[in-house]
């Protein structure tokens, strides 16, 4: 049983990681700090199991590389205030399921939950719903993505690996950034269009111009089209050559 880290110890550790002057002992300390989130994550995952049959994948501790990159990218962020030290991810079929699950999470973990709806305000094109809940005094981030949002995110990650990690944060080559944002916008339009049609009153009436099966048929066809675009665009990353002079 180790002695709990004090806030000032964590803050100083974060400073050393940000400055890139950390030691092996600091990595051990960070590992101890990450372990403090395990009981909270366990409680959150147990809660999710009550709400949905969709299985989450747990990430008990953020990777050291991700922590350091985040501290360096966001100079005002402190290690002890990071909301995503521990978390989990669920991929659901559509925005209806996404909204339902996020709302249920907020009700189940009602101690100061935070809903971060990145569908309306995407981060460099990244769209999802993140719910940050509190359990056992610790924050845990739950990422809820639709399949299309997840496909886009995987695509973006791939471009980041192949071309420039800054793409994930709104940097990198302009043409790549713009194209990814364009695809993100198309996915948003697709998801919003189908959501608004689904919830419109005539859709449910007996005089509706088409029924639910036809609606889903159209939805799936549109999904497939967007995925085909993403695939074509993703292939381009392997062949990408930056413009001369960049």
């Amino acid at each position, binding site marked *: 049983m180790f002695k709990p880290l004090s806030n000032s110890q964590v803050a100083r550790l974060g400073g050393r990681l940000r400055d890139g002057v950390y030691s*092996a002992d600091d*990595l*051990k300390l960070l590992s101890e700090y990450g372990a403090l989130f395990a009981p909270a994550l366990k409680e959150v995952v147990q809660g999710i199991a009550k709400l949905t049959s969709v*299985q989450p994948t747990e990430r008990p501790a953020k990777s050291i590389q991700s922590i*350091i990159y985040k501290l360096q990218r966001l100079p005002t962020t402190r290690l002890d205030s990071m909301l995503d030290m521990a978390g989990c991810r669920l991929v659901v079929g559509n925005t209806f399921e996404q909204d339902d699950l996020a709302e249920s999470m907020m009700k189940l973990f009602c101690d100061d939950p935070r809903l971060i709806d990145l569908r309306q305000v995407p981060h460099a094109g990244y769209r999802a719903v993140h719910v940050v809940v509190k359990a056992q005094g610790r924050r845990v981030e739950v990422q809820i993505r639709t399949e299309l949002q997840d496909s886009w995110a995987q695509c973006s990650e791939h471009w*980041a690996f*192949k071309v420039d990690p800054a793409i994930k944060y709104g940097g990198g080559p302009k043409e790549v950034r713009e194209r990814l944002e364009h695809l993100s916008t198309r996915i948003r339009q697709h998801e919003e269009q189908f959501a608004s049609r689904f919830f419109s009153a005539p859709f449910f009436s007996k005089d509706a111009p088409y029924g639910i099966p036809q609606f889903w048929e159209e939805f799936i066809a549109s999904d497939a089209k967007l995925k085909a675009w*993403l*695939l074509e665009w993703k292939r381009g990353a*392997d062949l990408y050559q930056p413009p001369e002079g960049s």
Partner: protein
Amino acid sequence: MLIDFDQSSGKLLSSRTFAESERALAEKARLDLELALHAAGNMREVVILRARDEAQIRRTHRRYFETWEELLT
């Protein structure tokens, strides 16, 4: 599952699966790998992902495992 991923090349260097009863062992393996990388002056994405089965991890974190084509099918 313990993932060792090289972001600069976009390649999964290794993945190691642990049983649910081996959580502490997985955590130790993660820390040992991080310490070894630090000693060698390297940095890679080393992370533990946990799910009911490996297929679940491959579904939610496809980018570690799949090619372009596989990602969208």
